[in-house]
Structure formats: structure tokens, C-alpha cells
């Protein structure tokens, strides 16, 4: 016979959980609530006159062609960044995994860019590609190509993508390398004995076994491209030329902190918040369950 054990009511568990709950409320729930409330208001910059407008800010946003364009642009931007940084990282990780001598040095060098602040990374790239002073521009013009990302939107986008991807390669590299090293050597050796070449081994054994890592990184990279690239865009192009690099997170800043349109900006950040929540749900649902291990 099973005996039901009842613990008497105790404050201890509540006390133990309290710090976490307090932190969440202060640093997440409260500001998020503020943003939500602000997104329903039209207010002047100084906060002297306020009008409650329900969802009007959201309606205006989707009426705005620039916002819709910014949405599409962000999707292009983030997929490019995720694809570039992940594929490069995978190649580098595979190479670093094969190296025996001096592998520690290679790995350390490859991880360096991750320690660079986004703003610094942006400044670095923008100097190299400056239309007047840049060293790369100089080389390109010697080859007959006139680079001017201050005028050409696609060039500006390419530049921002490059800088953003470059910074993220190191992070992806770390995870891919760890993933590669956790694949049992015996599996690969068995395949080699069966006559599978390096390409076939990679395609049929290594890459499928890396799929949980890849999926996790995909989500992380998209989140990164969506939210952490603000500094890079700010330094390199400030959203220009003609809005060609004005991605969602930058638009929140420029509408809110430059344009002082707090309601509109808050509405945009609420939408971004919904996107993050969506991405997190996807990650938990699929990374944890559906991806084959």
C-alpha cells in the first residue's frame, strides 16, 4: 500500500524562489509591461501631454511602407548573417578538428573576434571599406570596381552582413568544434573501414550527428542578427543609405531615441518581443524534441 506523504506548508521554498521571481519582475515583467502600456499611447517627447489610443500605433506601423520594408529587410539580413556565419564556422571547425599540432593556437585565434564589441567590429570594417580612405576600397578601385556603400544600398547591406557574420563566426565555431569532438571516433573509424571517403563520412555521419547543434545555432544566430547587431548598424551605416540597412531593431532606436516617437517605437519593440517569444517557443519545442540525436 502506497503511503501518501504530505509535507507541511513551509515558507522555505517560496523564500528560495523569491529572488529569481523578484529579478524577473523588476528586469523583465515590469519594463515589458511599461513598453506594452507605452505602445498604446501617443505622447509628446517631454511626457507633458498623453493620449490613450488603443492599438492605433500598431495600425499606423503596418500602414507604413518603410516598416513593412524593414521587416523584409530584417529577414533577408538575418538569414544571410546566419547562413554565412554558420557555414564559415562549420568549415573552420572541421579544419580545426583535423589539426593536431598547434590546435590550441588556432582555436584561440578563431575565438578572438567574439570578444570584440559590436561597435568596435563595425568601426573596423567601416574603416576598411570607407569610400574615400578605406584600404579595401583602394584595392577594389585598382581592380576597377568603384565601392561606395554610402550611396549603394546593396553594398551597404553586404558590408553590414559581413561585419555581423564575422563577429558571430567565433561563437558558432566554438559550438561546432565541441559538437565535432563529441562524435565518437569509433563511428567514423568504422565508416572509414567500410570504405567511406571523407566527404561521404561528413555528409552521412558527421553532419547528421551535428544537427542538434546546428539547429540550436540557427535559432541563436537569428536572434543575434535580429537584436544584437544594433551597434554594428549604428556605427557603419546608421540605417542608410535610403534606409537600405534599416533593420527592425535599428528602427526602434531611430524612431524612439532620434525621432522621439515613443508610442510608435514602443509598438515596434512589442512586436520584436513577440518575435523573441516565438523563437524561444520554437527552440524549446523542436530543439528539445524533434531534432534527432
Amino acid at each position, binding site marked *: 500500500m502506497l503511503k501518501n506523504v504530505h509535507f507541511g506548508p513551509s515558507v522555505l521554498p517560496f523564500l528560495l524562489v523569491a529572488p529569481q521571481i523578484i529579478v524577473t519582475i523588476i528586469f523583465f515583467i515590469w519594463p515589458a509591461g511599461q513598453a506594452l502600456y507605452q505602445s498604446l499611447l*501617443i505622447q*509628446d517627447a517631454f511626457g*507633458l*501631454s498623453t493620449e490613450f489610443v488603443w492599438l492605433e500605433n500598431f495600425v499606423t506601423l503596418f500602414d507604413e511602407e518603410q516598416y513593412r520594408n524593414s521587416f523584409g529587410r530584417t529577414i533577408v539580413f538575418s538569414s544571410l548573417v546566419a547562413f554565412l556565419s554558420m557555414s564559415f564556422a562549420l568549415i573552420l571547425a572541421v579544419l580545426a578538428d583535423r589539426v593536431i599540432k598547434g590546435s590550441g593556437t588556432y582555436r584561440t585565434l578563431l575565438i578572438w573576434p567574439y570578444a570584440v564589441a559590436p561597435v568596435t567590429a563595425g568601426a573596423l570594417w567601416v574603416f576598411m571599406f570607407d569610400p574615400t580612405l578605406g584600404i579595401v576600397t583602394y584595392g577594389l578601385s585598382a581592380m576597377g570596381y568603384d565601392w561606395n556603400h554610402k550611396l549603394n544600398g546593396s553594398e551597404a547591406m553586404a558590408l553590414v552582413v559581413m561585419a555581423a557574420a564575422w563577429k558571430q563566426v567565433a561563437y558558432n565555431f566554438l559550438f561546432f568544434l565541441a559538437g565535432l569532438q563529441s562524435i565518437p571516433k569509433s563511428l567514423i573509424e568504422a565508416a572509414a573501414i567500410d570504405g567511406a571517403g571523407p566527404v561521404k563520412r561528413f555528409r552521412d555521419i558527421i553532419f547528421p550527428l551535428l544537427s542538434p547543434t546546428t539547429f540550436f545555432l540557427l535559432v541563436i544566430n537569428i536572434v543575434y542578427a535580429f537584436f544584437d547587431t544594433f551597434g554594428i548598424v549604428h556605427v557603419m551605416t546608421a540605417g542608410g543609405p535610403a534606409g537600405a540597412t534599416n533593420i527592425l531593431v535599428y528602427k526602434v532606436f531611430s524612431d524612439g531615441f*532620434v525621432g*522621439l*516617437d515613443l508610442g510608435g517605437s514602443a509598438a515596434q519593440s512589442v512586436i520584436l518581443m513577440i518575435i523573441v517569444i516565438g523563437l524561444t517557443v520554437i527552440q524549446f519545442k523542436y530543439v528539445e524534441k524533434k531534432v534527432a540525436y
Partner: protein
Amino acid sequence: MSIFKKLFVPAVLAAVAGGAGLASAATEVQWWHAMGGTNGERVNKIAADFNATQSEYKVVPTFKGNYTETMTAAIAAFRAKKQPHIVQVFEVGTATMMAAKGAVYPVEEMMKDAGEPFDKSQYLPAVISYYQTSDGELLSMPFNSSTPVLWYNADAFKKAGVASVPKTWPEMKAASEKLVAAGYKCGFSFGWQSWVMVENFSAWHNLPMGTEENGFKGTNTIFEFDNDIVKTHMTNLQDWSKNKLFVYGGRRGDSLSMFTNGECGMWMNSSAYYGSIKKQAKFEFGQSMLPFYPNVIKSPQNSIIGGATLWVLKGKKADEYKGVAQFMNYLSSPEVQAWWHQETGYVPITTPAYELSKKQGFYKSNPGTDTAIKQLSLNTPTPNSRGIRFGNFVQIRDVINEEMEAIWSGDKTGAAGMDEAAKRGDVLLRKFERANGS
């Protein structure tokens, strides 16, 4: 003993220092500004010099980033009830500040309340008319005002055989063609393009940028810069960019290096680049008035100012405002203003400061440095050339910049770009009108 020394000596020193501090406790006046680099040092010098003249008040200047950052910092501080006494706000923020009636202490009213003498007639009309209400009350204290001028490379002109500095746009085109033919990478470039090529272009040709006297009479304004003359100008610039007569190099001062490197023979931007150009250019340079279209206007009207003014924020004690008022008087004294003007290339804001610079022989030894002030006071300002005062203008300027970039890159025609800019601008004007409930 040694422990005793270690603890006791600093304690005594601290007590003495604290006591001394108490004895001369000066009322602090916070001044937030956006002047970085060398200009920041000049601002610090002005504050330090003022502090040395008296012991009652202590002005503390704080650098808060660029113009936009300084303004948003002050607004955020006001919302948190931690605002500074004085904040430097650029001219496009004027409408936002004006609309904030509960937050801003009009300078003229403050001077009167503090019992400080204040003679408005000494200020240059072109400078203060921008910052007055429709009843003529001065809202903020002019500090660093500038206007766009035409900078030229005299050596390049000689090499390319350009005989005289262009006065009109057709002459600009001819000169640029010669420069490009002589091997220069471009004829001309410019920065702060909305300010130079739309706002000042309109005033210079006596064209309205918007209704309601460019926003001076009310917030119910509609943009009018989408007129045929501005559109034609945009189309011309687009045409000229095809054969490098004009090359675009960025929104703010980014294209400065194109001029100082000797790539472009001419550059249109603020007179306040005087210090930078003087330091960087290894050729003989000069400044001259902006070009105009002779088929639009016989002779140009006057240009409008840029730069910033000092706004006083409400919510401080009355005796602190006395210090603010004294400092304002010090700041606009002829000596300080003449020094500031000659060091930076900003316009002297008062007639006495201008006269003093003349007397000191500054314009004789630095020919052309009075271009800006001459250009501003060329004619009595009309409703079209008094300035502009549109709400949300920081954002609208970015809209105009975006559309202009689309024109330069060939994505849009001059007409389509300006139509779109005016349309998007009007939306933001309506938003401002609504948010400010007037």
C-alpha cells in the same frame, strides 16, 4: 606610529578640504552640451573663465554626446526630474522644445525674473528670429550658430583653369566640368544635405518649405518643398552625379575628407568646418556664398542658420536661475563671443561681437571668414527665409535624407523622391500636431 600617520593625516586633510569646500559652497549650474573634441575644450574654458569671475556660482559643463543624444538625454532627465539647468539643443529640435511649455523656461522671461540686464537689439536678427515666438519673445539663448557656405580649393581652380568662384548653379556646373577634365575625382560634394540642399536652398531662393510661414505660425503645416524648382534642382544634381560633377559622400560631415584630400574641388557645408579645414587642407582654400539659379531669383535672399542654442529647463530654485542668467550674460559678451567665433567659425551672435572681430582685424587676416554672417544678413528675412520650425523635424530630416539618397543612387527620379519625402514628412507633422495637442 605609521598606522597613525596613515589614518590621521588623510583624515585631517579631508576635514580641512571639506571645511574649505563648505566655506565657498558655490551654487552649481549644470550645463549639458554636445561639443566634443576641441570645441568641448573651448566650452570648458568658457565655463572655467566664468567661474573665475565670481564665487557665488559654479557652472559645470558636461558633454552628453552628439546633438541628438544630448537632446534625448535632457528629455529623459526631465522625465526623471533630474534635468540640468541649461541644455544645448540643435536648431531642428526647436519645435519640440517650444511645444514643451511646462518644461522650458524662456530665456527672455528668465532674464527678467532674475533681474539681469538683457538687450535683445544687440543680437543679429537672422540669428534670433529663429528662436522667437510669434510675439517676439526670445525662447533660447543663441550660442553656436552657423550657415552653409561654399568651400573651394583655390589651387584646384588654378590647375583646372577656373577663373572665378562660381556664383550660380550653371557656373557650378561649368567649373565642375573643368575640374573633372583636369583629373579631379569630382567637382563638388556636400554634407548635411537636407539642411544645405533643401532647407537653405529654399530660403536662398525665397521659396517656402512649408505652409504657415515654415511652421512659425502653427503646427498645422503642410510641406511645400516638393515644388518644381526644388525638384528640378534634384534632377540636375542626379544628372551631374552621372559624370562625377557631383559625388555624394554621406549625410553629415563625412564628405569632409573628400574635400580636404583634394578629391573634390568644392564642398558645401557649415561655416563651422573652418577649424577642421584649416587644420587638414594642404592647399589654399576659401569660402564663398552658396550658388543660386539666376532663372529663379535675380539675387539670393538670405541663408538660414544651423547649429544650436542654449535652453533653460524649469524646475530649479529661483536663486539658481540667477546664476544661469549671469552666465548667459557672460556668454554673450562681445569678448567671449568674438573669441568663440574666431576659434570655431561659428557666427558671432551679437553685433558688438561682430564689430569687435572687425576691430581686431580678424577678417582682414583671414579673408572670407565673414561669408557666413554676410550671407545670413544679406537681406531682411522674409517668412520664407526666417528659418523653419517643423515638429518632429529630426525625424523628417532623416526622411528627406533617405529620399535624397535614393535620388543620388538613381533608384528614384528627383520628382518622385521629393514627392515621397513631402508625403512622409506630412504624416510626421500630423503626428506631432496630435501629440502636442494644438
